[in-house]
């Protein structure tokens, strides 16, 4: 008896092997190191389970550093959203010539990636003690930033306005498609029903845009919260924010307890993770309208 020409052969499913190098790499250099930190946050020096490290976060300078970090992140995210929204709206709704749009988006794509040491120097050279704007204001208007306005680049507001340099472009990049998704019919329908411009914004446009704006806010928050290089180059260790304190801890165990360092890092992951989950969830909601 002849065999069937196409007898079904039993084959092990092997397609997953093609994914193996990638998965191994990501597990080794992203997942495992992160897990190591997370698990370490719940361990004593001897390796036993404990919640003490997490509780200890509420001691010494740690709560205040989290608080300053959160404040800077909120301030730079909120201002970034506000200014970015204004700029995007000006371009999308034609308050300024339309040809501004393409260069603005290109520029935003570039600038939103620009955090780091050079950014800190740019702001030092502009708003620092002998910076361009500082000197300009002093010589021409008699305003001394530090004395008259209480402003110093090495402070809370100094760091906030520096972060805005990459926060505003990120907002522009994300919110422009959302603004363009507002259909003209909605505005016309509102006008036919007798709505004023303000009513249209308050009752139609803003409720639709709200998830996008809030989601971007969350993303900008996480963006500022994790920034290290700009802060270190700008303020050294004079401003006690979480990334700077963690940096010092990694270099020299300044907290005197390695597992407390793990707990601090774990806290950072929790904060950025919450912000990112909020972003993803709000984005899904926003996309219901913007199709």
């Amino acid at each position, binding site marked *: 008896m002849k065999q069937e020409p196409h007898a079904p052969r039993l084959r092990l499913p092997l397609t*997953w092997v*093609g*994914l193996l*190098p*990638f998965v191994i*790499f*990501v597990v080794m*250099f*992203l997942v*495992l*190191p*992160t897990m*190591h*930190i997370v698990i370490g946050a719940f361990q004593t020096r001897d390796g036993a389970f404990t919640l003490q490290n997490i509780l200890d976060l509420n001691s010494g300078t740690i709560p205040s550093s989290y608080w300053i970090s959160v404040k800077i992140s909120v301030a730079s995210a909120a201002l970034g959203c506000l*200014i*970015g929204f*204004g700029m995007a*709206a*000006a*371009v999308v*709704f034609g*308050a*300024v010539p339309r040809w*501004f749009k393409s260069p603005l988006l*290109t520029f935003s*794509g*570039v*600038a939103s*990636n*620009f955090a*780091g*040491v*050079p950014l*800190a*120097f*740019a*702001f*030092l*050279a*502009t708003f620092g003690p002998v*910076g*361009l*704007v500082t000197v300009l204001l002093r010589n021409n208007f008699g305003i001394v930033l530090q004395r008259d306005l209480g402003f110093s680049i090495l402070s809370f507001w100094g760091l906030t306005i520096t972060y805005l*340099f990459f926060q*505003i472009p990120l907002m522009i990049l994300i919110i422009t498609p959302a603004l363009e998704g507002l259909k003209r019919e909605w505005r016309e329908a509102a006008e036919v029903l007798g709505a004023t411009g303000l009513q249209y914004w308050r009752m139609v446009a803003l409720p639709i845009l709200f998830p996008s704006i809030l989601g971007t806010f969350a993303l900008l928050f*996480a963006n500022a*919260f*994790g920034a*290290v290089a700009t802060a*270190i*180059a700008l303020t*050294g260790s004079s401003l006690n924010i979480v*990334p700077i304190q963690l*940096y010092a801890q*990694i*270099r020299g165990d300044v907290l005197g307890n390695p597992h407390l360092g793990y707990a601090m890092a774990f806290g*950072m*992951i929790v904060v*950025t*993770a919450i912000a990112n989950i909020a972003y993803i969830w709000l984005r899904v909601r926003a996309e219901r309208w913007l199709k």
Partner: protein
Amino acid sequence: MSLWTRIAGWGALIFGLLYFFVPLGGLFEFSLKARRGVYSFDAYAKVLADPQFQQTFTYSVVMALVTIAIGVVLVVPTAFWVRLKMPWARPYVEFLTLMPLVIPAIVIVFGYIRLYNTSSFLPLTGSVMGTNLLLAFGYTILALPYMYRAVDTGLRTIDVATLTEAAQSLGAGWVTILGRVILPNVIPAVLSGAFLTFAIVIGEFTLAALLDRPAFGPYLQRIGANKAYEPFALSVIAFGITWGCLVLIQLVSRLQKTAQRPA
């Protein structure tokens, strides 16, 4: 459009443009002030002649190239395979590639230091070469979200299944398919991922500083604490390189669009 809307629009735009360009102008102006009373390129001359600058800069450039090589070898086959054979796995792979945006770099490198130290199962930080390798792997992770998205977008524009079958029917193996069919077709996407990787690596501070490698970012921060004008000249150079890379990406992606337009 009412007058007030126009004024508000111009106001927002002008404010924003000032916000972007005044610090860049301030930086450039300051970097020229090394000689008292006149503008000069003294700070640049001093910086460029500094052997430490040359060493750290070369180190970072080599690091960036190694990172790009690892990234391409890792990402292109994976994205290709997922598109071709395992489309159901795409959301999961994509999720993994986005994780570096969620987990701060400082936490990742903290994990490296503890996990790959001299007493661990893989003592990468025990030797100079091992630490360099670890740094390159770390950079690959940092660049992963951008690299993966760029390549995946590139793959979307070509018919992966048909190209693969055509190559297979001519007798090509997987290496030939990837190297001579798929890669040439997604070169613009790979290039834009590569330029972004370059821009990220060249000025990166956190990983290099904490792994104690002589890279450009930590050098810039270090002389920023000690020298008056040089760090500003260096920042202008760093800005120039990064922006050059990012402008190149824009050009490449525009090229890609023109190339794909049906004749």
